[in-house]
């Protein structure tokens, strides 16, 4: 979880949350994830943390895993952060809503302006929100509704916020991501391609589009931690 500063991928802090053991149980599978190897997940999580800290030089904040929140490590769903503003989301799954509490606290401590979703009708999963550096796209998916997208627009008023219909079980960012300042990386599935086409129509800014064979591969973060630093991809 990066905190993008100006433009795309500028960040100083990374926030992660440990993998609870409950992730391996049924809850995870329910979220569309394949049954996973807990040990591997925890190992990978450790590697991620290390990379963020050492390779990228980010200040790493790690929230402790909570057994009651099996999907807690998927922090991307809990907040949308741009500039000094953090929008605390209201995940579609009621079970996940408590996840935001710890995140809110952490972000508050970082001095970000916290914006809450007060609307009971709004649902918003953070991974349905794609920030390209110039504008937002919000996937209208199984997880995020129009009202939720509207709140994104209300929160980040400087930017155009466009809605992209997302078919299937994925989040928008499960289909595509930013591979660079003006490059959208997308999977090759129908849903992903459709989303990318929709975005191409909606944008005022031309993006190059890079198609990857695998949707999951498109779920990446483009980070530019240092000033002239090498921009690495983070595949999650």
């Amino acid at each position, binding site marked *: 979880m990066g905190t993008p500063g100006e433009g795309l991928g500028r960040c100083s802090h990374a926030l992660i949350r440990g993998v609870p053991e409950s992730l391996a149980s049924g809850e995870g599978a329910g979220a569309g994830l394949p049954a996973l190897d807990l040990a591997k997940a925890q190992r990978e999580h450790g590697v991620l943390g290390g990379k963020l800290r050492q390779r990228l030089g980010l200040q790493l904040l790690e929230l402790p895993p909570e057994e009651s929140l099996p999907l807690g490590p998927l922090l991307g769903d809990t907040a949308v952060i741009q500039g*000094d*503003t953090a929008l605390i989301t209201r995940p579609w799954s009621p079970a996940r809503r408590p996840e935001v509490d710890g995140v809110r606290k952490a972000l508050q401590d970082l001095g970000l302006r916290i914006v809450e979703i007060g609307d009971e009708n709004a649902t918003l999963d953070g991974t349905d929100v794609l920030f390209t550096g*110039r504008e937002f796209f919000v996937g209208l998916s199984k997880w995020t509704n129009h009202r939720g997208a509207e709140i994104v627009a209300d929160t980040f008023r400087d930017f155009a916020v466009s809605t992209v219909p997302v078919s299937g079980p994925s989040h928008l960012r499960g289909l595509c991501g930013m591979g660079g300042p003006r490059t959208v990386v997308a999977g090759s599935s129908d849903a992903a391609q459709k989303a990318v086409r929709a975005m191409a129509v*909606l944008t*005022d800014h*031309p993006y190059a589009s890079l198609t990857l064979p695998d949707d999951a591969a498109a779920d990446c973060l483009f980070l530019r931690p240092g000033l002239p630093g090498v921009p690495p991809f983070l595949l999650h």
Partner: protein
Amino acid sequence: MTTEVGSVSEVKKDSSQLGTDATKEKPKEVAENQQNQSSDPEEEKGSQPPPAAESQSSLRRQKREKETSESRGISRFIPPWLKKQKSYTLVVAKDGGDKKEPTQAVVEEQVLDKEEPLPEEQRQAKGDAEEMAQKKQEIKVEVKEEKPSVSKEEKPSVSKVEMQPTELVSKEREEKVKETQEDKLEGGAAKRETKEVQTNELKAEKASQKVTKKTKTVQCKVTLLDGTEYSCDLEKHAKGQVLFDKVCEHLNLLEKDYFGLLFQESPEQKNWLDPAKEIKRQLRNLPWLFTFNVKFYPPDPSQLTEDITRYFLCLQLRQDIASGRLPCSFVTHALLGSYTLQAELGDYDPEEHGSIDLSEFQFAPTQTKELEEKVAELHKTHRGLSPAQADSQFLENAKRLSMYGVDLHHAKDSEGVDIKLGVCANGLLIYKDRLRINRFAWPKILKISYKRSNFYIKVRPAELEQFESTIGFKLPNHRAAKRLWKVCVEHHTFYRLVSPEQPPKAKFLTLGSKFRYSGRTQAQTRQASTLIDRPAPHFERTSSKRVSRSLDGAPIGVMDQSLMKDFPGAAGEISAYGPGLVSIAVVQDGDGRREVRSPTKAPHLQLIEGKELDKAQEDILKHQASISELKRNFMESTPEPRPNEWEKRRITPLSLQTQGRKGDHLFKDILSVKEKYLMPTIWTVEEKAQETDKTRAPESEGPCTGARDAVKSSHETLNIVEEKKRAEVGKDERVITEEMNGKEISPGSGPGEIRKVEPVTQKDSTSLSSESSSSSSESEEEDVGEYRPHHRVTEGTIREEQEYEEEVEEEPRPAAKVVEREEAVPEASPVTQAGASVITVETVIQENVGAQKIPGEKSVHEGALKQDMGEEAEEEPQKVNGEVSHVDIDVLPQIICCSEPPVVKTEMVTISDASQRTEISTKEVPIVQTETKTITYESPQIDGGAGGDSGTLLTAQTITSESVSTTTTTHITKTVKGGISETRIEKRIVITGDGDIDHDQALAQAIREAREQHPDMSVTRVVVHKETELAEEGED
């Protein structure tokens, strides 16, 4: 066999007056205009014979009458003041382009149209006259040249004025119609001479009578952006333009095309005042209250030339922000607010500003203490920024806001869901709540129309779709639909086109709005801005406290607190922008005069990239490869039709060029030439391959295809003129013809374009109107209107994107290229014409009166010409060719002669050598071998003093006329050099034939004609370019 004979004639005029006259005339005319307006139209109408005492207002009234009922007879009118731009006026007027030409056109129109029960024949005749328009133009221009003492502005009145005094008014009209036509047909110079004399007399007479007229005036009040009110008296029938000009003058604003006047039609509806129409008719019974506002938000404010323009834009944006129209985040509110403080208060001073109550300012719709604190905090960080710099920073941040420049209209979609339609520079945006749910870029939109309260856009089929789709929106009411439609038409024209489209011709039973945007386009206004040559005007920034209060409606005194005088007044200071701010070259000469080069950018880019570019396109482009960077520079400096003079917005289509008044422009021009012409020229040769790739790639997408489609579609939609030609000329000629019409003629010649566009529109609107049988034909009330962006894309936009156009044309039919560019040298047209040969003859006629010819120009021109042929075989260089030849035509002469270093020449020369090759190997163009020969005859006198002296371009126009096998393009350029004015006529005659034509004879004929037409000029250069197809006949 195709023969092209081009004669370039150059005329040098002794009379330096010609130039100065023309310029002086203009202000004078304005003044006169106003005088005229103040005279009482009613009185005039009643009184019978003082024909000379015609006032503009009565003309307007007449026109209105005609439009409304077409029943009232109208008394005579003499428009002796109707001076400028005769030929253009005629064209427009005859095409019924009433809205287009606010003043002059009207008059002309009446001559021909007013006659209500005009018999069919006459209508016919009128049509003929229309066709004659081109020729007539030519003739007139010639006259001009022969009579340097008479400024061209006086011409228009000539024919009409002449008869007025002698005949009875009522009968006169018919006569007049005929006479006018006759005149046109004859075009004898001698005759005109005598008339001119009369004109002048009449004018004098008129002037004396004018004084005695009473005036009916109305007081108007205009709320300005700083909250103050400007009031003035206007003649009752004054047009919007008059008021707008007054306001701009009051504001000392030159870059005024971005602005407009709004009037409140109803509490929630505001309308733009149409400058071309009478204010009274637009307002109906509303009070004469207006607000001065930004109408077109410049996508890149840093390209504005003057700080004062940026200042007004800032004021507008502050209003937009405070009112919530332009939503921003907290941070942005704070940042923008802090720049506002810096601009208005100067550096933060704890003693002085610590006590200021920031709540008096309005930084946001709802302002919190927190925001004020943040504003104050940020203000401290801007220390050292001048007010102008602070404004620039303000704009740099504001322009990135997603709603910047988006004009929102409430609507419902087809399912009745509330949405908002946002019109902006790039197209049409669809919002639901705050979310953007769809977007239609201009290139995607084929047609915009409205019918009653519905608004429709016809959209180009998407990638995988096959059919165009029409999307309808429901507006609250009919007027809202029309307003949206108009805004779309205006935005499209302003941001996407090079020059405004002519309004469709008023036909007998036309229904629907003929509205077209009549102001300058962004491209034009940017061109014009580069010529602003005045010390930065001194202006006071008034505190936005006042602005915020004025939003509450409280009247405020003008001299209210401006806590700081921000301007030391030194011009130099202003140009001291922060380095990152202004990406354009700022050159300051010894006098401290400032020249800012603001190249026109957007349209080119869009086409090159084949994608939309955003407001901050520059940012993006920075990251692009140096190739495209260079290319962009290259493209963007493509000269375009420029308005003749800063003040004169209506003239633009005719006059290709502008004048630079001072030598200062050299600075700028040297820069631009060096950077933008020279470099790419050389460089392109080396990097051909890459270049092509780049250029080609986008070709297949976006606007390119758009244009191509449009080209095709205009083939499909038949129209009379084209039809005729098709009958006579071969299949491929069609393309050429069209090109000629659309392109070569386009600057001045309305007729070509209009004829072409109009029938299409006509057809559609009638079909529409048949559905809505009840729709009224009165223009204000019309229920339907439509607008096809893409006709213009083919015809207008093309002019700037030479390269792009070429390629578009090239693909379907290579032959089209032959005549495509103004300066393009014909090439073999290999497609279907067997044994075609092309000969270009350029005759340069020159009357050398004490001034030296500009050698640089010549050689460049020549070089370009040859280069064209030489490089023809490979396509990459053609882009270069196109541009370079443009240098010759469109760029001010002095640029070429002074700032083109020898390098360029040699480059040209090299290429011209290459052009001696007799065979052109075509890469993509199929098969047919051609032979190209170029012979240049040049008078020795030309090579005289090198570029010490630089001319100033006065006018330039291009006229094209066609007959069965010949196409004549006449390019007339007037320049003033030192005290000497020079008229240069270039004629390009393309003779296309299949072997029966004796080319030598044709050449001789062409030269002879040129001599005859301009006895007082000398032929300085003849270039014969002959292309013969070898494949079949192998002759030549």
